[in-house]
């Protein structure tokens, strides 16, 4: 057990070092990524004026929507996995995956640690632009900081959104064992993600336009936990039993994708060693 923890720590440390080689100028890049917030402020001001309503479905006021948008950026800083699925597919295509067949090391565990390292380095640098933008936009958070239990639920949900994003995208990457190119599949996934994770606007806006039979699907679908759910929790739009249930459903999805990912890897390795290598 101790030996294993030490192995993980070494992998994590080395991955962090590797990420630091590429520290580059992504602080500026991160700041630039907030530029659309200005567009968002204009857009939603116009939308609310035209709708002549104080709140839109889900109880979101204009300020709430802008605060929501900022919070989904935090959620996506946890749940988005740039290059994960395509990286796995590339490793399969180019044969680098062999390393994990030959050496006594677990592919998924290794990728997870590499991703944690990737994220930690990112947060360490991105906290500055994030802090700056949140400070400038503090007035949109009309309720101020949420109470401690809500904050705890928010953090828990963020951590699970990281795990969900990781295992979901890693599972897509494993498809590379069957199809050499996963980029078009990834594109489809991104499209679904765009609509159903809620990173453009609260999902409650969408449900109104969807046919009735889709409502339960929307309520339980996993993508909402990548952006919508943590942000809505922070803003107090989801609370009480609904919050507990949401966290439980999120946890179940994490477990489901952990299993899917592992099964896909095992079957993938089996296929790989049967066909190619």
């Amino acid at each position, binding site marked *: 057990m101790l030996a294993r923890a030490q192995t993980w720590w070494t992998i994590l440390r080395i991955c962090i070092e590797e990420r630091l080689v590429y520290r580059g100028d992504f602080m500026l890049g991160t700041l630039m990524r907030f530029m659309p917030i200005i567009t968002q402020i204009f857009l939603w001001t116009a939308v609310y004026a035209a709708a002549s309503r104080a709140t839109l479905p889900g109880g979101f006021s204009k300020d709430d929507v802008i605060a929501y948008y900022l919070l989904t950026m935090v959620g996506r800083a946890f749940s988005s996995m740039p290059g994960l699925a395509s990286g796995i597919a590339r490793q399969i295509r180019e*044969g680098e995956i062999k390393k994990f067949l030959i050496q006594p090391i677990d592919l998924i565990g290794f990728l997870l640690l590499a991703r944690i390292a990737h994220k930690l380095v990112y947060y360490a640098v991105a906290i500055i632009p994030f802090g700056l933008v949140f400070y400038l936009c503090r007035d949109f958070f009309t309720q101020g900081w949420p109470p401690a239990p809500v904050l705890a639920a928010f953090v828990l949900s963020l951590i699970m959104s990281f795990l969900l994003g990781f295992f979901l995208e890693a599972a897509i990457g494993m498809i590379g064992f069957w199809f050499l190119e996963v980029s078009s599949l990834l594109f489809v996934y991104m499209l679904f993600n765009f609509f159903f994770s809620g990173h453009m606007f609260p999902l409650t806006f969408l449900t109104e336009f969807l046919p009735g039979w889709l409502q339960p699907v929307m309520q339980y679908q996993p993508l909402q936990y990548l952006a919508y759910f943590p942000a809505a929790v922070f803003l107090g739009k989801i609370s009480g039993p609904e919050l507990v249930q949401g966290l439980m459903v999120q946890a179940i999805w994490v477990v489901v994708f952990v299993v899917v990912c592992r099964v896909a890897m095992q079957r993938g390795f089996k296929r790989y060693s049967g066909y190619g290598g």
Partner: protein
Amino acid sequence: MAVIEISGLKKSYRVYQKREGLWASLTGLFSREFRDVRAVRGIDLTVDEGEFVAFLGPNGAGKTTTLKLLSGVISPTAGDARVMGFVPWERTNEYRRRFALVMGQKNQLWWDLPAAESFRLHQQIYRIEPADFDHTLAELTDLLDVGKLLNQPVRELSLGERMKMELIAALLHSPEVLFLDEPTIGLDVIAQHNIQKFLKHYQEVRRITILLTSHYMKDVAALCQRVVIIAQGQIMYDGSLAGVVDSFSTHKVLTLQFADDQVPSDLDRYGELIELVPPKVKLRVERVDISRILSTVLADHALEDVSVEDPPLEDVIADLFTQSSEQAEREEVAATQ
């Protein structure tokens, strides 16, 4: 004691056959044609502890496929193999901690980090005791003379230096069996020689079992007591390197130096002319005829010098490969008719 036991090992790949042209590409979307490539066609081999065996063969002969099977990267279509009692393609961690595979064209090290960091990682994943790790690393870096390069990012190293680092990474956990796939590919003569010298020394001291594939006859001649020639997925020869010539060479090279600068014009009756630089002549003579022809030549001509030699090893092996691929083509044609 047998460390590697292989019996009836076979591996076929199914390869997608794409025909040329757009229409064929379109129909290929719906019905695909596959062809079986029999990369390994039934190999039996036993390797004892401490042997250094070379796999020789042309490209596509099945050398690398065999190494992949033995290191568990792929599983066989039929047959069986045991390495130190383990079935390689079960990929148990117990097995994986006891062997290493080095591929000359594949990089296992972290590109942007110093090699020392990759070695640390290996220490962890192979669970190497810190004292053993320090000792082995010091020994290996000393032998390969790369102590000063340990803290330089791998991407800044030369190909030869990188190969040395690859070898260190593979040997840190003191594997009992080592598979080397073209370890000197792309290296210059000096770097090749350094790697050879190291491997020879390491194997002699540690007595580990090594299987090596190479295109370079020099690697093989320098390192291996035993040579296994593979062509068309089958073993064609298993024995000493010197024995290859005895077993496969059908002719000898007869060099004659005539007296008085007189080269007779009817040399054809002795054998095939290879080289003619008067007064010296090189002839290719069938092995079975050599004594008869030699006595005729000596009786008929005044000679200053005579030598009978085996053809160069490279030529024998090259001939062997050509023969085997021609034979395979004939078989293929016969099979499709």
